[in-house]
C-alpha cells in the first residue's frame, strides 16, 4: 500500500506492507514516518484544531487536541468543541475540555486571550 506521510512538509511517499500482524514500512525519511504508517493501517489518528465560543465576544478561541486522537472520533471532538463556551481569561495550554469525547485527550487553548 502506498501513502503519503503527513508529519512534515516533505511528504515522503511510504510503501506499507501488512503481513498478518506485521507491518513493514519503507520510503520513510525519519522514524516518525514509520510510526505514522503503522498507526495509519492499525489505528489512524489526527490532531484536531478548532474554535470554541468565548462568552460575550464574537471572536472565538483557537484550541487543539493535546495529542492526536483516533480519526473516527473527529466528528465527536468537533461536536464537543461546538458545544463549548469559555470564560476569559485563558492562557495557552489551559485545558478547555478534559478527555474530549472519551478519548483520554484534553482539548487545550492555543492562544492567550
Amino acid at each position, binding site marked *: 500500500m502506498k501513502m503519503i506521510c*503527513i508529519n512534515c512538509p516533505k511528504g515522503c511517499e511510504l510503501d506499507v506492507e501488512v503481513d498478518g500482524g506485521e507491518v513493514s514500512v519503507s520510503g520513510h525519511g525519519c522514524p516518525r514516518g514509520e510510526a505514522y504508517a503503522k498507526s495509519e493501517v492499525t489505528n489512524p489518528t489526527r490532531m484536531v484544531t478548532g474554535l470554541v465560543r468565548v462568552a460575550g465576544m464574537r471572536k472565538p478561541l*483557537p484550541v487543539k487536541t493535546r495529542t492526536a486522537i483516533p480519526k473516527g472520533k473527529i466528528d465527536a471532538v468537533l461536536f464537543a468543541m461546538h458545544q463549548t463556551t469559555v470564560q476569559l481569561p485563558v492562557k495557552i495550554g489551559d485545558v478547555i475540555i478534559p478527555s474530549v469525547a472519551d478519548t483520554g485527550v484534553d482539548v487545550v487553548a492555543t492562544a492567550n486571550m
Partner: protein
Amino acid sequence: MKTDVIVVGAGVVGCAVARELARWNLSVTVLEAGSDVAEGASKANSAIVHAGFDANPGTNKAKFNVLGNRMFEDVCRELKVPFRRNGSIVLAFGPEDEATLRELKERGERNGVPTEIISQDELRRREPNVSSEATAALWAPTGGICCPYELTFRYAENAAANGAEFFFEAKVVNVVRIVPHGDYVPDAPFPYMVTCEDGREFTARAVVNCAGTHSDELNNLVSHRKYSITARRGEYLMLDRDEDGTFSATMFQCPGKMGKGILVSPTVDGTVIVGPTAEDVDDKEDKATTYAGLEKVKAGARRTYPDLPIGKVIAEFSGMRAHETTVGDFVIGEAVDAPCFFNAVGVESPGLTSAPAIGLYLAGRVAERLGASRKNPSLISKDVSWWPKTREMKPSELAELVERDPSFGRVVCRCEEVTEGEIRAAIRARVGARTLDGIKRRTRSGMGRCQGGFCTPRLIEILGAELGLSPEAFLLSRKTAPAALKAREAGNGERVTGNGVLDVLVVGAGPAGLAAACAAKEAGADGVLVIERDDAPGGILQQCIHNGFGLHRFKEELTGPEYAQRFVDKAAELGIPVVCGTMVLDISPRPDGSVEVTAMSPRGGLKVYRSRSVVLAMGCRERPRGALMTPGTRPAGVYTAGTVQRLVNMDGIMPGRRVVILGSGDIGLIMARRLTFSGAKVLACVEIMKKSSGLMRNVVQCLNDYDIPLLLSHTVTDVEGREHVTGVKVAKVDDDLKPIPGTEMHFDCDTLVLSCGLIPENELTKKAGVEMDARTRGPKVDPKTMATSVPGIFAGGNVVRVYDLVDWVSRDSEIAGRSAAAYAIQYGR
C-alpha cells in the same frame, strides 16, 4: 410626495442635472433604482475626458463633448475632484490608419478641437513604451482623465447640500402624465405621477430622464416618439500602480463602427486602465466579464503596448454603454409630445465628458419651462462633503489632523493607504456609503492590489458600527445590507515608545520581524523597536490556527498562534518594544547612513523614527481575483482563502455554506478542512495545473480525509450570481491551460474561495529605493547577510520570497537581525 422636479437615475448625468437644478428655486428629488449613486455606466467606463475630435460634427455628441470638455477644469475644481489634462493620442498602424488620422483631424477642426499629426519618431519620444508598429499618431492636447464615480459622488453631495433629496432602491416602473381635459394644461400644478416598484408615489412638475440603459423604457412610457437602447458591454482590465507612468497620454487606436476601440490609459489614481471591448448584449444588467472578452482586451492592448504585463492585472470588470439605435446620438431635451418631460437618452461615450454640459443645459431648460428663478448665489452651498485624503497629505498636515482626530491615523486599506477616518467620513456624508462597494468607490479602500483581501473584515466592522448593523450583513450582497444586530467596536492595544536614534528598527511583528528583533538584541544591538500595523503582534500566524508549525525549530508541532506567542514572549523577555496599530508610510535612507522611518498611528499621530539600520519584515499578500482573470459577474461571496481564514478564525464569521475553492495553495487546502469543520460543504477544490501547488500532506489531511474532490487541470470559467454567488462553472483545461469546450460542469454554491498563491509585499521596499528581484518579486538580498542593495536596510521572511515553512522564515530573519545589529554597531555609532 410632491416635488418640482424628479430626476430619474443617479449616474453622472442625473447627479449633474440635480446639482445644476438645485441652484434654482426648485425642489429636486432624485430616484435611483440601485442602492448608491454611480451604479451603472458611471462606475465602469474608461474614465476619459474626450477631446471631441471623434464625434460627427453637428451631432449632440459633438456639441456636448466639446462643451463638457471645456467645463471640466472648473467643475472639477468646484467639486474637488481629481482631473488631469494628459492629452489623447490616436495611433495609426499603417497607411490606411494614417488616412483615418487625417479624417479625424479634419473632423476635429470642424468641431473646434485642436489636434496635430505627429511622426513615429515624435511619438516614440513622447511615449517610449508604445509599440514600434505604430507609424504615426494624432495628438489632441485637450483630452483628459478623471475619476467618474468620484465626480458623480461629489455632484450628488453638492446637490444634496443644496436641498436635493435622494431616494435609493426606488426603481421607477411607471410615469403618467395627468391630462385633465384631454389636452396638456400648462398650469396643471403637478402633472407627472411617478410610481416606484415598491409602491412609493411622487408627483412632479417636471421629470428628467437620466435612466441610462433604461432611459428608452422611461421615455416610451410617456412619449409616442419611441427610442430603443441596446446595451453595449465593454470589458476592462486594471493594472497595478506599479505601471503608473507607462504612458503619459491616453492611447487610442483608430475608431471602428462599434466604438473607439481598445485604449490604454493612465488613471488619476495611478493605475492603468485597459479596454474596452464592445459587444451588444440582450440583458442590460449582464455585467459579467467573459473569457473571450478579456482575451480580446489583452490582444487589443498589446497592439499599443506589446509588453503588457498580465501579472500586474489587479481587477477585471465590465460596464454597460446605453447605445441608442434609432438616431445613434444623444437625445437631449424636452420630449416632443410630453411637455416638461426631459430626456437624456442614449448617453454613451462621450457621456462622462458631456455630463457637465448636459447637466447645465437640461437644468436651464427645466428652469425656463417651470419659470423658476435663480437662487441667490450667496445661498448656494459649495459644500461637497469633502474629507482629507491622508495618502496625499504633507506629513505636517497629517500630524495635525491625526492629533485632532486619531481615526485618521489608523490605516485600514494598506494597498491604497486609506484610513478609518476617511471611511467613516464616507459613511457619514450626505449621500453616504451604505455598502462595501460604496466605501470602495468613495475612498478607494479595497481598490488596490489586494482588492479587499485585507480590509474587508475591517470595513464590515466599521460599516456595522456606524450604521448599527451586524458586520455579516454587509457580506450578503454587494448592494444592500439588511438590518440586524448592533455591531461591536474594536479595541486598540497600542504602546508608545520614546525618541532618539535606534540601532535596529524592524517593520512588521510577524514571526519574521520578531525573530529579527530578538536576534538583533541578542547580537548586542541597543535600541531595537518593532512597528506593527495590526492591533496585536504575531502577524498572519494569529489566524493560522491549524497545527504543523515549528517542527524544525522547536521539535514539536505547534499551531500558528502558539508559534507566534513563543516569539512574542521572547521579545517581551528581551525588553523589545512592539508598537502596534502603527503603519509605516515611508522609509528613506539619509546621507549620514542612517534611515528615516515615517509611521502613523491613531494615538501617536505621525512620527518620524531614525535608526542606524532597518529590517524589512512586512510579509506577503494573496493574489486577488483580478490577478486570476476569472470571468463572470462580480457578486458578493468571492474571497481569497486568507480573508476567509481571518473571518472564520478571528472574527467568528462564516462567509458561506456551499463552497468551491479555486487553486490548491496551502491556505486553500487548510481552509477546505476548516470550512468543513465549521459546518460548510466544500464541493470541490479546482486546480488549473496538473498537480497541487500545496504540500502533499495538506492534500491528504485536508481534502482526502474529508472526501473533497481535487479537480486537477480544471479551472473556473464562469462565476454566476448578481447579488451573491449562486454557482460556478468549471471546465477541464488543455496543455495550454485553455478551457476545453464541452467539459463544463456546474456547481451550485454560495462562496468561491481563491487560493492562488502569495506575493511579497514590497511597497515600502520600493519607496526605500531598494533594488528588486523580478523573479521572487522581493528585494535582491545577499543570502549570507540578508542585506539589500541599500546600505543599512535588511530584509527577512516572506517579504523577500514566499517561504513554505515558517521555520525557515524565522531562521533567515534572524540572519537579517544579526546583520542589522552588526551594521549598526560597526558603522552607525
